[in-house]
């Protein structure tokens, strides 16, 4: 309360990237306050704290409460309750559904009773506390509506001890003891180090009980233990007050101390699953909703762990959530609220449908080409977002060419397509497009980005060998699992087997292991280098175990001096092979761990042979939830401008997809089609979703992620440059490559090009989608206006303008031709008139030093077209 807890030490953040966000301390303190709150003899899972927060919040925000007249039914959540042991309580939710389909947290207006007063009592309106073993029924009533839920209390009379693993650690995690800036830092804090967010209960137990001569706990006089005195500020504590004497947190810690500090045991029940209530809800703006979290343990018992869980909103603009799981709904849309408890993650999907109720026909009549559309429309209907109408043929054509092959359609192709009357002409176009060599160039380039093909790491011959292998794989539509396997297990001479060059770029087992998971699984495991991954289930041992799979890879080089550097090109003629044995000794754990793909069974360290085979099998298995999902998400992003999961290289349980049902279905379909990337591309391009207009409707303008309309995107650097070359017919000349070679055909991003660099070409130093940027910069603007690239093309002799002049086209014809080649459409009447008139005026003007004023005027017009948004964006 007081908001004081938000001030936290942020010093000592050792993490980089997104992980640091989670390494931070929780942003609210538990319990406490200086405002004179009486510490109450609160039970373990107290409702009081949430209550008081709620009261304050209600007073301030005065949420919109719906009239109960339109209430259609109420429900108790969780639907069935079992309370085990004397310590546990359970909070309830009474959730109402109203006539218009929205839900509301009705706790404040509900009456809750229990059929048998010997079994349990209701405290503070909505918290149930056990009184004795037995069964009863919980009954909730709200103005004539009634709901019931069965209640079972067991083990009430069984002596129950506080568990280090399941009681003490969750308290320490929630109040932030083991957070990144505090004692969870790699170096600890003031001599006291805990594992980050409690990933290592055994080490933490020893740190608390044994270390520094049992400094922190006192089993003879538990009240003198530093772990009570410091967080309550009886003694100065750099981390400030974490909880109060008498708080539920204090009781857990004190109880555990008094009971002799039981150590974590192998046999402890562990959390197997967490559930959040409500799991999903449509709420109204301003609504407030308490979330309830239940942990399910390996011994079958369940407990309300709401107080110890952590909450995080996926979209603060839609839903805000506080430290107690109390949600305030803000703006339209959908927000997954992430719930964490003991390394388990789940989501509550909360949404505020857009206010306008739409006719059902908006969705039933919307274009549907395949199952993508069914799942997109289903989601849009729930959110009250109408889809935009379908794009016109010319829009679709330009879009498809650019997205799938990185080129613009030629004038003749445009004319033919627009005239074509066959009903499936769009599908025909897609098929034809996918047979073109430019399609192969485009996707070879894309995978070369992913696999870091570059002469910065490889000699020219090696780079070509690597690139050609990738291009050949695309050409033959090699199934993605086969593609990955060939890289992962590559052996042999790098000039003969292009895939083997991967192993020249990744020579260190740790780097290899990080890159493999990034490129082929879209996950970032580098956090686990120093500590267990805070956002995913990967542990430090998983990390080093996996690295050991790559410890046997050897490079044989025939260089005169056996010269070998850590980075940079080797000499040509390198052979990659796997030694029969060998282990990787890491720099931190100092013991080689048995080779093991992240969550698979470990191989024996003595197992002979190429351990990469084992990895490849695990990687490409249909049971690997990340492998297919990663590539599906990356391909989706290519076409839709946004991954279903963003960022695309950060797949994890804690980063939900905007449309999980769709991503799962596409992934399944991709696996069923034998990892066929072309088939996936075709499915996406054929969908009505891909073919919607980019023009938003008033009602869907705010949507940028649910697929209601095509998301416009700036042409990638290489595509833009190629488009300039294509329209002006003034080909680019790259140093060391033949004239006329397109940017998209380059095997290498180290090729010098001011234009490509300015427009965000990646350097291919790291496998990271964000290496390529489409951020607008002043450099880009200046280069387009005054720079040489475009202006030289327009000035070049024998370019498109000269050709049109030689053909004797009129100004009107030239305008039309340039429109078709640039925008794949004819100019509108007014556009044509205005431009023709403007050209006529300009051509009459006498400009000093300009002999051919007509050509000059045409160049200016072409420049205007080529620098327009309509040209530079795919839409």
């Amino acid at each position, binding site marked *: 309360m*007081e908001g004081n807890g938000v001030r936290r030490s942020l010093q000592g953040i050792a993490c980089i990237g997104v992980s640091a966000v989670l390494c931070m301390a929780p942003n609210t303190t538990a319990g406490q306050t200086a405002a004179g709150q009486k510490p109450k003899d609160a039970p373990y899972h107290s409702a009081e704290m949430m209550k008081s927060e709620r009261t304050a919040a209600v007073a301030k925000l005065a949420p919109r409460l719906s009239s109960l007249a339109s209430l259609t039914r109420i429900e108790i959540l969780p639907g069935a309750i079992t309370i085990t042991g004397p310590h546990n309580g359970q909070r309830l939710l009474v959730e109402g559904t109203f006539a218009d389909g929205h839900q509301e947290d009705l706790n404040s207006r509900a009456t809750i009773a229990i059929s048998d007063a010997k079994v349990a009592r209701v405290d503070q309106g909505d918290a149930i506390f056990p009184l004795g073993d037995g069964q009863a029924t919980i009954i909730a009533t709200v103005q004539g509506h009634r709901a019931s839920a069965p209640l079972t209390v067991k083990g009430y009379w069984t002596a129950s001890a506080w568990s280090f693993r399941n009681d003490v650690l969750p308290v320490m995690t929630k109040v932030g003891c083991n957070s990144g800036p505090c004692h969870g830092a790699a170096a600890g804090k003031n001599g006291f180090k805990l594992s980050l967010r409690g990933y290592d209960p055994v080490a933490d137990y020893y740190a608390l009980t044994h270390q520094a001569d049992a400094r922190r706990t006192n089993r003879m006089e538990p009240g003198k233990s530093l772990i009570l005195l410091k967080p309550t500020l009886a003694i100065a504590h750099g981390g400030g007050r974490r909880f109060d004497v008498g708080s539920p947190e204090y009781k857990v810690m004190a109880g555990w101390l008094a009971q002799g500090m039981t150590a974590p045991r192998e046999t402890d029940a562990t959390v197997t699953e967490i559930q959040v209530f409500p799991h999903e809800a449509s709420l109204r703006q301003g609504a407030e909703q308490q979330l309830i979290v239940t942990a399910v343990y390996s011994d079958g018992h369940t407990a309300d762990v709401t107080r110890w869980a952590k909450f995080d909103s996926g979209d603060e603009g839609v839903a805000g959530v506080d430290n107690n799981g109390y949600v305030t709904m803000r703006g339209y849309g959908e927000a997954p609220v992430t719930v964490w408890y003991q390394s388990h993650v789940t989501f509550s999907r909360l949404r505020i449908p857009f206010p306008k109720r739409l006719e059902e026909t908006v969705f039933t009549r919307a274009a549907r080409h395949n199952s993508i559309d069914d799942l997109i429309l289903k989601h849009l209907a729930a959110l009250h977002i109408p889809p935009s109408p379908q794009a016109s043929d010319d829009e679709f054509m330009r879009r498809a060419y650019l997205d799938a092959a990185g080129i613009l359609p030629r004038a003749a192709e445009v004319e033919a397509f627009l005239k074509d009357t066959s009903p499936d002409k769009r599908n025909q176009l897609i098929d034809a497009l996918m047979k073109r060599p430019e399609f192969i160039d485009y996707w070879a380039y894309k995978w070369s980005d992913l696999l870091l093909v570059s002469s910065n790491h490889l000699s020219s011959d090696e780079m070509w060998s690597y690139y050609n292998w990738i291009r050949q794989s695309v050409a033959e539509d090699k199934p993605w699992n086969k593609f990955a396997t060939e890289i992962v297990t590559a052996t042999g001479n790098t000039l003969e087997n292009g895939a083997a060059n991967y192993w020249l770029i990744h020579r260190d087992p740790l780097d290899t292991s990080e890159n493999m998971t990034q490129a082929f699984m879209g996950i970032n495991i580098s956090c686990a280098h120093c500590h267990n991954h805070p956002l995913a289930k990967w542990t430090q041992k998983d990390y080093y175990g996996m690295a050991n799979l790559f410890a046997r890879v050897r490079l044989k080089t025939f260089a005169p001096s056996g010269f070998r550097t850590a980075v940079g090109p080797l000499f040509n003629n390198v052979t990659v092979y796997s030694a029969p044995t060998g282990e990787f000794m890491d720099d931190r754990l100092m013991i080689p761990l048995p080779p093991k793909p992240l969550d698979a069974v470990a191989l024996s360290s003595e197992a002979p042979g190429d351990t990469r085979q084992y990895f490849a099998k695990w990687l490409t298995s249909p049971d690997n939830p990340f492998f297919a999902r990663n590539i599906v998400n990356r391909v989706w992003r290519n076409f839709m401008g946004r991954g279903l999961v963003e960022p695309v290289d950060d797949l994890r349980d804690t980063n939900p997809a905007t449309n999980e049902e769709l991503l799962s279905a596409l992934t399944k379909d991709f696996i069923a089609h034998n990892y066929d990337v072309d088939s996936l591309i075709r499915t996406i391009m054929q969908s009505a979703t891909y073919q919607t207009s980019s023009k938003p409707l008033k009602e869907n303008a705010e949507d940028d992620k649910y697929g209601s309309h095509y998301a416009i995107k700036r042409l990638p650097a290489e595509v833009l440059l190629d488009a300039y070359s294509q329209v002006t017919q003034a080909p680019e000349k790259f140093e060391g490559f033949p004239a006329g070679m397109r940017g998209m055909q380059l095997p290498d991003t180290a090729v010098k090009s001011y234009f490509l660099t300015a427009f965000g070409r990646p350097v291919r130093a790291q496998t990271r989608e964000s290496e390529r940027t489409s951020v607008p910069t002043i450099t880009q603007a200046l280069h387009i206006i005054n720079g040489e690239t475009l202006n030289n093309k327009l000035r070049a002799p024998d370019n498109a303008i000269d050709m049109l002049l030689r053909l004797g086209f009129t100004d009107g014809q030239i305008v039309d031709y340039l429109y078709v080649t640039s925008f794949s459409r004819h100019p509108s009447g007014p556009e044509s008139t205005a431009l023709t008139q403007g050209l006529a005026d300009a051509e009459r003007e006498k400009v000093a030093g300009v002999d051919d004023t007509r050509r000059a005027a045409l160049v200016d017009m072409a420049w205007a077209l080529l620098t327009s948004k309509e040209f530079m964006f795919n839409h």
Partner: protein
Amino acid sequence: MKIRQVIHGICAPGLTCVAVLTIAAGLAYGSLFAPRVLAAAHASPPDYSEVAPIFARNCGSCHSSVQHKSGLVIDNYSALMKGGRHGAVVVAHDAKDSKLMRMLEGELDPQMPLDADPLAAAELAKIRAWIEAGAPGPASDTSAAPSIEPGTGLRTGPEIKPEVNVISPVTSVRFSPDGTMLAVGGNKEVRLIDSVSGKVVARFVTDAGAVRSLAFSPDGQLLAAAGGAPQIEGEIDIWNVASRQKIRTIRGHRDCIYSIAWSPDGKLIASGSYDRMIKLWDAGTGKELRNLQDHIDAVFAVAFSPDGRLLASASQDRTVKIWDVATGKRLYTLSDASDGLNSVAFSRSGDRIAAGGYDKTIYVWKLGEDDGHLSQSLIADEDSLLALVWSPDGKAIITSSSDGSIRFRDAATLEAISVIDRQPDWVEALDISIDGKWLAAGRYDGSLSIYDTQSRKPIRAPMMVFESLPHSAGDQAKEAGGR
């Protein structure tokens, strides 16, 4: 999430973040909870004794004579009035202009206490009133003394009774110089047992909490036991072994003492504390002779060289420092370790020194006049080393480790000669008799074993030195269980 990303985006560790977070806090909660100002006026303005505990509690961890960020020391009156590197912090009669007040109230960034909750309104009011009253000093001139007198200002929480039988860990062991007796330290108590029979021959009671270190005077007539309350004070008690009388209690340090050593000439006692200090005491009078201040983290072990000329100290700061006992000057620092060190021992000849700790490695340095150099190091165990002793004949180094082993090592190569493994709990108390015959190992679980160093076999079954503390039974478990 967005706010967090913003923070993360601009967040090089440090003050910027705190500032941003404060803003976030203000937005989120500020308006909801206006601080309640204490209305009740003081009948008379508070004197220093009322504000000093507030300073000690809230500011002590960064602005004490032990650690003084920005050169500011708040835990004694004269230093507080002098201010820090950035000038005075208290302007008498003018709370509004006092930097101390402004930073505590958040008017001046960064708000203090840094990274912790602001002071309660009542505390702020008290400090304000004290400054307005002219910031009067303490009644008697104790400006050099800490504001909380050691031993009198124990800040503690509610008493909690163990609900199960508990037995004190063995926190220290030390053989008497003639080897006939072994002193064993535990919670608030030292027992002297007969080395051969294991019989308890004497019990010494102390207020020093866990007795973390023991030392006999070289003639064996006196026994010193050191401990204290973590983060409050250190304490050394000295008994006459023959008469069983406590002859002196020395209090000092701002945290408990982890290690003491008696100088070979019997005149000095050295103590190392978690407060980062090493102190040299006159063993005869109990007077503090020197405060050796150079470690930047807890001092876990101290040892005198056989000739008494040098003192070695091992610290959590990963170093061993060598001090000249006569002048109190630090001669040099041995900084090869990669993690904290918790034990240190001189070789018999005094020309080498061994240390070990959390990086699982044993280090042996050869000592010179102006510097020492690493002569051996070995990653010794699978887990942190807990204790290390050098055999009196100089040939063996014996270590205990949290991997549950005691290892005898060749001092020349550090290779293990033999292992006594499967210790039932951590051995943090380890000592070897001066004739080198016996090794005593005390454990966290309260058990003690004495081993024959030749056969590596225990001479008796493990014994529990202390009795288990009876607990009040009944359904108290349920009580503390939170109901």
